[in-house]
């Protein structure tokens, strides 16, 4: 079941009161129009997703499969994994604990009503030294829920924090 509501309840239903899904306001440029002081819907979704993803990853990796669908594709350090099952298998990594700390994140709406979220941060697995990483998610609204259709992960080589 794809995740639609994170614990902090800031998740906006794509057809909820506060705004449509990205594409329904008249195409790509339309999504950028907003009232002063409003946080655009795609920013809210992107932000919520990121928060939820790393919370899951750090605390209960087994639940990660919920945010992907069978058509999802993960590119992990240059290698591709297709489908929920493959991605979940990757998630069963040989370390006990892991912590992510995000140092930068940003979002943009895409022309086909998706949201691209980019994250740069640091991670620490067990007692290993801290490593930099960056990750990119492409979020899509499918059947009234936002799922991750593409995920790209890379360790950062040039900056180890």
């Amino acid at each position, binding site marked *: 079941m794809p995740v639609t509501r994170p614990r902090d309840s800031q998740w906006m239903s794509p057809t909820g009161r506060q705004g449509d899904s990205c594409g329904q306001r008249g195409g*790509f*440029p339309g999504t*950028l129009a*907003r009232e*002063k*002081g*409003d946080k*655009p819907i795609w*920013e809210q979704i992107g*932000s919520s997703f990121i928060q939820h993803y790393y919370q899951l990853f750090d605390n209960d990796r087994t639940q990660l499969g919920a945010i992907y669908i069978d058509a999802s*594709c993960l*590119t*992990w*350090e*240059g*290698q*591709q994994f297709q489908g929920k099952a493959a991605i979940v298998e*990757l998630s*069963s*990594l*040989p*370390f006990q604990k*892991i912590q992510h700390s*995000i*140092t*930068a*994140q*940003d*979002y*943009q*709406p*895409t*022309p*086909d009503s998706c949201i*691209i979220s*980019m994250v*740069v*941060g640091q*991670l620490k*697995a*067990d*007692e*290993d*030294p801290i*490593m*930099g990483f*960056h990750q*990119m998610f*492409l979020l899509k609204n499918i059947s009234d829920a936002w799922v991750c*259709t*593409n995920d*790209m992960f*890379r*360790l*950062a*080589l*040039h*900056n*180890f*924090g």
Partner: protein
Amino acid sequence: MGHSDQVVRRRARRWDMYQMRFSSVFQPVNLGMHSSSHQQQDGHAAMQGVRVESPLRYTPYAISPSHRRVSFLKQDQTHVNMEREQKPPERRVEVNRPHGTLGSWFKITIPFGIKYNEKWLLNLIQNKCSVSFNPVEFRYEKMNATFFVENASVASALKNVSGKIWDEDNEKVSIFVCPDGIPHSVQRELKSEKVEQVKLAVNHQQALDIQKLPIYSDFMTCDTKMAPNPRKGVAASLHVREENTPKVMSSGETDKWKGTEPGEKCVDRSPVCTTFLDNSSNINSILELFPKLLCLDAQQSPGPTLCGLEAHKRLPTCKGSFFGSEMLKNLVLQFLQQYYLIYDSGDRQGLLCAYHDEACLSLSISFNPGDSALSNLFKYFKDNRNIKAVKDPDLRGQLLRHTKRDIVDFLGALPKTQHDLSSFLVDMWYQTKRMLCFSVNGVFKEVEGQSQGSVLAFTRTFIATRGSSSSLRIVNDELFLRGTSHQRTQSALFTLVPTPFSSSMPAFSQEQQKMAQGFSAQSGMNFQWSQKCLHNNQ
């Protein structure tokens, strides 16, 4: 141009031929087009079994009608009748010179010039150019238009035209000049023993005109294998099986590495074919980007606590750049090469043609308070859209640049840079017929201002639409900047001057090994990764 029926029909025919020429990009043909002389043949061969796309789709960002080209396939006899427009006489110029003499040749490249009709383009340039020039061997190479001229002052005059001419979409046309190109027809005239003389002459010419002409990066392949640090966790668990190790194209110099210790072969670099006087005297194939491939070797002796775990749960191998297919790889690499050529040229207005009208761009910076490189990022702070730093929705709205003019103006105000394309790691993570998404990681150096010489790392994600001409237009551009972590790597030589006649890179010297070891000890990185970082910044 008139709008008579005749003209319209001619245009339609040209468009069909043009389509046929490039419909091969939609077919899984062998597109290992490394030399321009083979390019046309491949395209022609590919056309045989290719179904032409029809009917023509409306593509608002495709080539505008006035710029559609005639087919330039010389072997394409069936279309000879349609080429009544005639190739301009210049294209069939045989170089009439005494046998054995050379003159100084320069290759002129117009990035993204594939959109323009040859005659139109040459007229446009000539109208602005202070001297008249004789273009030799005009051709389209992938996304560019190229030709040769035979005079340093002509080349210089052409260089001055760059950025001062506009196409019909009001986008700047850039012109790049390279001193090392020699047309095929000239090459053929020279005997082999003259080749060495030519090399020297070109090199000398290059040295003389170096201030006037742009420097092209020398892009090297890298066959890099690194062993992980034998520790638990993410790094330790990454390993590669030998048969999965990507093989890197080299120019046949791998035999130099025979006899080295297995451990010493961790970092070896074989240069791309760098002689400019072979059959592929094509600056673009030479400059073709081969991102570094990164692999982690199998761990020799895993720690006892890991044995059981590793048997069941192996992390996937770490590979280098990822592309969906050879064709897409060529497309993306070439696009990046063009993009950064203009980006580093000093006039980023030339990037207008790389962006969609409604494109978006944002910039984010990440840093840690203790970063020694923090001061290098100060100038980017005002444009930083990192949500960790900027929460006000109105400000965030302003910082999201929208429309290509806004974007290119913004980019133009950023410091002048020099990107190290050999450091690029590219991931193509999503593609459809209409869209391509890819991310690039690498380093660049600032080449002016207070932080001149500082090296920054970046990750940049592009989402681009694909036109029917295999052109890409960026619709989303997200740029993340961060400092590079170690002073020593920053201060190491950051050489991007082309060395067309150099041999392969030497193995690390003793001193460099010591540097890498010291770096490794301080940063906690394993030794091989330290070597890589060191090498990246050389």
